[in-house]
């Protein structure tokens, strides 16, 4: 669409929208450097909440658990989700296709309380001890679906003849996949991994249902603090998380742009 049509109305609605989206986050960040214990009253600049945050062992433990769950579950979910995406885009019509794609799409919108509760009931039925691995399994389950959707949208536009050429030249199917298909879809696989990872480190509801004693994730920890009201340490922690995520997303999107530009040149 033409740029000269960019009217005042459009500019205003975008600006207001962005203010609405970002003002709360900005306030949160600014007040994490507040020296006063009253979170909404400015008492001067200070980084003491960051210091006390890093001395708080239970927060640090929870952060460690969260990272571990995130890394393990994102990696497994990416592998499974990519394979699922391959099946979805390649296998054509097979029995149970509707069921299969239904299973992939529905967790995207399923309320977390239902997913969490049903997974928990399953773990209990299987008689598994709840803890680190049950959280990880639960996270794999729901983030895999997001991976499948992201990767399959890339696979739809993928030129199959490249793969066939590789096979004509003597590659085994597995080699053709690893040497031709995978490098081409890699940016979207990486993006999917990042998505799975952030979903996992963000999740409160599913983790609360599926965790057991000893395995507390950071969102669970934050939640228990937030229920008691505002807390400057949480502001500091949130700021750190927001910065980490933003840097990650921006770097990822720059990398994706570069990859796109490169493909355009080829």
């Amino acid at each position, binding site marked *: 669409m033409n740029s000269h049509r960019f009217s005042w109305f459009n500019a205003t609605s*975008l600006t207001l929208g962005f203010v609405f989206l970002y003002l709360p986050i900005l306030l949160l960040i600014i007040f994490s450097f507040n020296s006063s214990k009253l979170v909404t009253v400015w008492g001067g600049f200070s980084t003491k909440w960051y210091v006390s945050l890093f001395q708080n062992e239970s927060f640090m433990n929870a952060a460690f658990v969260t990272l571990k769950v995130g890394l393990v579950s994102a990696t497994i979910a990416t592998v499974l989700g990519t394979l699922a995406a391959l099946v979805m885009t390649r*296998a054509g019509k097979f029995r149970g296709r509707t069921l299969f794609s239904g299973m992939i799409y529905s967790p995207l919108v399923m309320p977390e309380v239902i997913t969490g509760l049903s997974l928990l009931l*399953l773990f209990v039925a299987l008689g598994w001890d709840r803890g680190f691995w049950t959280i990880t399994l639960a996270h794999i389950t729901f983030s*895999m679906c997001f991976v499948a959707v992201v990767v399959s949208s890339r696979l739809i536009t993928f030129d199959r003849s490249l793969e066939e050429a590789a096979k004509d030249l003597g590659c085994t199917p597995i080699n053709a996949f690893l040497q031709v298909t995978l490098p081409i879809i890699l940016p979207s696989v990486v993006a999917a991994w990042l998505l799975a990872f952030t979903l996992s480190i963000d999740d409160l509801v599913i983790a609360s249902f599926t965790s057991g004693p000893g395995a507390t994730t950071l969102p669970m920890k934050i939640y228990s603090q937030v229920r008691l009201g505002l807390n400057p340490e949480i502001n500091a922690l949130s700021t750190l998380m927001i910065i980490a995520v933003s840097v990650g997303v921006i770097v990822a999107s720059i990398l994706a742009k570069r990859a796109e530009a490169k493909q355009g040149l080829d």
Partner: protein
Amino acid sequence: MLWLLIFFLAPFFIVLKISLSDMATSIPPYTPQLDTKLGLLSSIPAYFKALDFENFIWLIEDNLYWKSYLSSLKVATISTLFVLLIGYPMAYALARAPTRWRGVLVLLIILPFWTSFLIRIYSWIGILKTEGFLNYFLMWIGIIDTPLEILNTNIAVYIGIVYSYLPFMILPLYAALEKMDDSLIEAALDLGSTRVTAFWQVTFPLSMPGVIAGCFLVFIPAMGEFVIPDILGGSETLMIGKTLWSEFFNNRDWPVAAAVAVVLLLLLVIPIVLFQRQQEKEHEVVA
């Protein structure tokens, strides 16, 4: 060869899928069996009792669950409408923004979605509470004299839902609006329609797939939302996600929590199936 690979892999996969993903989608049928293993409240009868209990009180129309479902429905519907009202102009503006800015602007929309949900909700407490930023601001510019009570009311829940689900609405809308051919509007204008009628008769109908997808993406999860009503809402806020949670964690009444989940799932089956159909259709069009 590839076919072999796929047909060797596919069944393997479906088994794997079912072993993982099916827990999420089809656990309700398991719940009765589950209780036997649990030995909770002498198993199956308890489950049926819970269901009867549900149905029974459902008839009386005066119970927590029934009210929670209704008010969840209300909250989800109203917030979906608001998200659409706010999201549509933004998506529209985004689709018309200069091309070189678009990537950055879209990134700015997505960025909050990547940051923690919990944190974004938490950030609203400081704004909405009685001695929060919003009240300071409004009192400072002189609109109000006494602080407004917003936190712990339904209004706060609406704000929270609209805020957190906005990107879910904007992105499908943007995708639909961006594809649109500008010449169609020009044609409408040439044929004598005003800008406003051109919008309602050409642009809006063409963006319908985006509107529908966005509404599903907001409505379905908002129905079962737990975190927002729990943190921003007060005691008057009844939402089914919250009821389920407290039934499960506070009352430790698993059969009832499971029954609540089953009913919620049944309520959501229709929109979920519709959503999935639409997604499939979109994909086929692309393919």
